[in-house]
């Protein structure tokens, strides 16, 4: 039988011989920036310099340094990240050329290489605990992401893993588990905010021979990657949450449904399930209890609507991912008509924390109605993009100006006056503006202003973002993704998109806005599932908060943000010194001119990408 204590002791023993630990972030962002090359450079250079390095945690003869890959450490824009323990040094933007120096100075000796540290306005931050981006967060669910090796189950166990599952399987009844989760006030992190304990209890009371638990890892929201990071960085926490959920509802089989676009998450989830089966964490009589649990990993095939639970179930059954009316709820009749509980990745990864620390302790963070923490994918025009986790109820101001380090302008410089709006909750969500900066981010207060937590995508926009174009973007998305079952969703979103196109391309009049609003409300009412019901949200919330901008497009045929290409023209004025920089950067060769003479833009060829404007150092390119 699985002996957690023995594994922990064995890891402890192996770690005893480890002098230093070098953890390289291998989340998608850092990999894109070349972190795997850095990883390989460490192995090669260590060899050359005679530094002993192991890439696997096992008992070694004599002292060694451990080099491992981790999941997303969150600070994506600063990648590749290299973390050195126990000193806690964090190096940012590490290149292959830096590796030798790191080995010489930081591994052989204990020196800090300042130029590789994060620089906060002139202050060198040596590690995570000195970097404002991390200081302002409360990492609970993400705590182990970026530390434990996601491909090593022993490390997870060493770090306290599978204790909650054991406790739930052996010491708790199904009802007790539901009660604790309900008392903790854990609400679904997928966006809806439904009480998890209640969902489980509804499934638990069904008297049926077979039940299922499903983890929804479909995360189709553009601009969100929290679930991806958890699955990549700490897949065992999701499995542990599923074991607990399965026990609570009385299920012996489960599915992790992962987006196919998330190749690394699929791979890591599969490896984690295999490892868990080998250790006996999954299978029959888990931890010597009467509880059996088999877990499958299923890859999605690219359909946003599959985030909708009934659609997700249909696709596991091998059908088109179309939602069906509720009731019956999946809790009563779900996968193959058996009672089924579907939870989001982050929710399930939070469950072990609730079981380990208890309901009261869980409630210490967050608000009374929305306890705990929430991860957000912070993107757009801010200094520090990445993955963050803050207590529920943190204000938008704190997130944007403290954690994210402020709003940036087109050239990437911080300029807080440039703040325009935050789009929250993806295509189902809405916009927040300056007046909402002190609004606490939690399920209920966001709902009140016509937005929602959604899956937690936070896209910060500056003055150069056109809100109408933004609304059109989301409409395009939901229109593409509509499964087509409901007429209002299928045709209504299409008409809404056409109207938005008319607006951004200068063909609309004031009636268009009235019609658009009317239709938006009809789509909300006339659609069956969450996709259609929430599809008009971005339009309605931008119409509510940025009416002026819509009016400018409609009445004056002008795009104030300068983004709608039909309503914008680029030209070069007499400030031009003829440096040719813009002509060289222009991707379509639309700029002509000779050296030291004023250049001209060919408006027919111009694709209005604005690269010339960004390139020109003399403010000679004008957008009008």
């Amino acid at each position: 039988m699985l002996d957690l204590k023995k594994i922990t002791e064995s890891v402890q023993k192996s770690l005893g011989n480890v002098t230093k630990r070098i953890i390289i972030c291998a989340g998608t962002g850092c990999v894109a920036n070349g972190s795997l090359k850095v990883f390989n450079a460490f192995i090669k250079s260590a060899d050359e310099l005679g530094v002993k390095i192991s890439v696997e945690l096992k008992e070694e003869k004599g002292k060694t340094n451990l080099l491992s890959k981790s999941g997303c450490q969150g600070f994506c824009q600063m990648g590749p990240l290299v973390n050195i323990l126990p000193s806690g040094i964090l190096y940012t933007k590490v290149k292959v050329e830096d590796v030798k120096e790191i080995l010489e100075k930081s591994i052989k000796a204990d020196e800090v290489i300042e130029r590789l540290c994060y620089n906060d306005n002139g202050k060198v931050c040596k590690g995570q605990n000195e970097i404002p981006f991390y200081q302002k967060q409360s990492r609970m669910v993400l705590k182990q992401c970026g530390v434990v090796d996601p491909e090593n189950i022993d490390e997870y166990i060493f770090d306290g893993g599978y204790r909650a599952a054991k406790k739930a399987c052996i010491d708790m009844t199904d009802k007790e588990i539901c009660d604790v989760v309900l008392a903790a006030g854990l609400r679904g992190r997928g966006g809806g905010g439904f009480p998890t304990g209640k969902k489980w209890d509804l499934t638990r009371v069904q008297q049926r021979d077979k039940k299922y638990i499903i983890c929804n890892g479909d995360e189709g929201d553009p601009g969100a990657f929290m679930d991806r990071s958890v699955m990549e960085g700490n897949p065992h926490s999701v499995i542990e949450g599923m074991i607990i959920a399965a026990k609570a509802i009385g299920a012996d089989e489960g599915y992790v449904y992962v987006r196919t676009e998330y190749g690394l998450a699929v791979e890591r989830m599969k490896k984690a399930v295999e490892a868990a089966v080998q250790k006996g964490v999954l299978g029959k009589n888990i931890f010597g209890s009467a509880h059996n649990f088999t877990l499958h990993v299923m890859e999605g095939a690219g359909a946003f609507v599959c985030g909708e639970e009934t659609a997700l179930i249909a696709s596991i059954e091998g059908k088109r991912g179309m939602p069906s009316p509720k009731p019956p709820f999946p809790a009563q009749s779900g996968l193959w008509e058996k009672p089924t509980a579907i939870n989001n990745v982050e929710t399930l990864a939070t469950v072990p924390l609730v079981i380990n620390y208890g309901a009261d302790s869980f409630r210490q963070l967050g608000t009374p109605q929305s306890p705990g923490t929430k991860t957000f994918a912070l993107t757009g025009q801010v200094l520090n993009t990445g993955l963050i986790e803050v207590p529920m109820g943190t204000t938008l101001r704190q997130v944007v100006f403290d954690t994210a380090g402020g709003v940036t302008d087109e050239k990437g410089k911080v300029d807080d006056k440039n703040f325009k709006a935050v789009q929250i909750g993806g295509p189902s969500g809405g916009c927040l503006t300056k007046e909402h900066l002190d609004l606490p981010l939690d399920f209920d207060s966001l709902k009140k202003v016509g937005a929602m937590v959604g899956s937690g995508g936070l896209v910060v926009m500056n003055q150069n973002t056109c809100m109408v174009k933004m609304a059109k973007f989301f409409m395009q998305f939901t229109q593409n993704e509509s499964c087509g079952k409901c007429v209002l969703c299928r045709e209504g979103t299409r008409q809404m998109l056409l109207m938005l196109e008319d607006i951004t391309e200068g063909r609309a009049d004031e009636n268009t806005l009235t019609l658009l609003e009317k239709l938006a409300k009809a789509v909300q009412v006339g659609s069956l599932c969450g996709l259609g019901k929430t599809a008009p949200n971005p339009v309605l919330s931008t119409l509510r908060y940025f009416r002026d901008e819509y009016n400018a497009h409609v009445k004056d045929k002008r795009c104030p943000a300068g983004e709608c290409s039909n309503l914008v023209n680029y030209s070069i004025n007499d400030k031009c010194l003829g440096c040719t920089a813009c002509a060289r950067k222009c991707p379509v060769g639309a700029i002509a001119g000779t050296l030291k003479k004023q250049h001209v833009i060919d408006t027919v060829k111009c694709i209005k990408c604005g690269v010339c404007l960004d390139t020109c150092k003399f403010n000679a390119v004008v957008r009008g």
Partner: protein
Amino acid sequence: MEAGYSKFDRVCQIIEENNYDKSKLIPILQAVQNEYRYLPEEILAFIASSLRISPARVYGVATFFAHFTLKQKGKHIIKVCDGTACHVKKSTNLINTIKNKLALKDGEFTTKDMLFTLETVSCLGACGLAPVMVVDEDVFGQVTPDKVIQIIDSILKQEAAQ
């Protein structure tokens, strides 16, 4: 003729591995697409009869999900992310630049020489590096229009050298 038969060998194997289970239709189509790089019509029909389901159902599933493609794709696949974050960071410019560079007209996604296919994807989940683009297996972050040209040129150069 022989080639025609061997074409079905792999699909037979895939169906067998999935125990002729019709609920495994999506994993089967995925494996088939990995093998053939698209879903040829005759293979869809073959899958339908093997699983004893209607060709309409197979076709329905194959056309419903964005990941599946019924058309042959080019040798190099350029995926431009048009998720929210990338969109805010002007991914449209990248798409226009690529279309221009590859001389793709509206509604065309694959170049005539079958060398490139351009796709836009809803979100790659690397939003911190927006705008993002994936060429074959390589992810490029914080891409600019002139960087796109460089990337395509370097592929063209490699192709010419072969």
